[in-house]
């Protein structure tokens, strides 16, 4: 899963340094935006909608931090404190993680891996279950969630959960992407597909 990270830090040296280190970390799929002007923080956060915000607690201030925490728009935003100097522990309270100016690449990698696990603990990288395969076949044939539910005697809600899990496991989000997966894995023939999604156009 791709992580959208925003680094809000006025110092260009610290900001660019952090960007360089994060980009160098292996096996992290990230997309980083930078905010230099702290007064723009709110507007920019609404624009980028990141999963993770990295900020020095002294720059953001406790008051604004609490406001961000309360804002339902940012309910899923993880906040990481960037600690550049000694600071009172109460300032760090409420943050989802703390990184220090002196953290090495390995430590950073572990910390991010930990945060990713907590953001996304449902995602399991393993093959599809038999039920999920059945659903893939139905999707590829062009059935709607409601039709799939009727066919398999399940509720549409369950189908939607299954589809979310399938997208999470395979990292494929579109019906035409699933079609490629299904053909490659011989779950369907091209003839089945032709009657399905392609004829809708």
């Amino acid at each position, binding site marked *: 899963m791709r992580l959208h990270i925003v680094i809000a830090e006025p110092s260009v040296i610290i900001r*660019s340094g952090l960007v360089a280190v994060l980009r160098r970390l292996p096996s992290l799929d990230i997309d980083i935006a930078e905010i230099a002007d702290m007064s723009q923080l709110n507007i920019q956060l609404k*624009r980028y909608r990141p999963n993770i915000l990295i900020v020095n607690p002294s720059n953001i201030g406790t008051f604004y931090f609490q406001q961000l925490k309360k804002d339902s728009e940012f309910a899923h935003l993880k906040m990481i404190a960037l600690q550049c100097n000694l600071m009172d522990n109460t300032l760090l309270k409420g943050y989802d993680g703390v990184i220090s100016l002196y953290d090495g690449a390995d430590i950073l990698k572990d910390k991010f891996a930990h945060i990713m696990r907590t953001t996304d603990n449902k995602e399991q990288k393993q093959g599809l279950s038999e039920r999920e395969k059945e659903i893939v076949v139905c999707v590829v044939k062009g059935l709607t969630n409601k039709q799939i539910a009727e066919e398999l005697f399940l509720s549409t809600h369950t189908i939607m959960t299954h589809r979310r899990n399938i997208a999470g496991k395979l990292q494929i989000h579109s019906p*035409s992407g699933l079609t490629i997966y299904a053909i490659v894995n011989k779950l369907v023939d091209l003839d089945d597909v032709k009657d399905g999604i392609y004829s809708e156009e």
Partner: protein
Amino acid sequence: MYKIGQYKEYDKLSDLICANYPMLLVVSRFGISLGFGDKSIKEVCDENSVDTNSFLAVVNLLINDEKLEIEEDINLSLPSLIEYLRDSHLYFLEYRLPQIRKKLIEALGDKNDISKVIIRFYDEYVDEVHKHIFYENTTVFSYAETLIEGSSVSGYNIDMFSCQHDEVNGKLAELRDIIIKYYPSQSSNELNSAMFDIFTCADDLASHNAVEDYIFTPIVRRLEQSNKK
């Protein structure tokens, strides 16, 4: 304001390109032809009737890793920026995307089921890019052009056009991932070459989007504000 690593109008254009070859695309999109000898950026721009500030703004945004919105005090020509973006659109639609399609067919063949669905997926992606670009060419750019004339438009503002890039780019990334993870055949020079093109095309698109997000949109937003006054 002087920033480290930024190119200035008196720097040689040939130095810029040798140090940053993707800028060849920028040069040709602004309609500058090669063969400019040792001339400075400003000289070449003047000879080709290109707004030097617009050219420098695009170049300096693209070569810097740090993407920041264009500064308030930089005065550049919005019409020439729009021309650049339109030309860039043409490049993707008429050259880059069809070329990748051709390479994919060469690499995968067009007879077997798997290649058929992959090409189909690619065509759907291209359709989406077409739609997105059509919307920008008609709605967004004409809106900006109306603003340039000093008129205001009710019911539309530039912030309605943002955050739409992600979806389109996501689809190309999905294709790339599907081929890497699930394509069940020996890789070949042809397939590698097609994949390299998909990767660089994604980078080109990201650069193109950066120009829209960090130069075009902020300038239009400022124009909106000044027209209101």
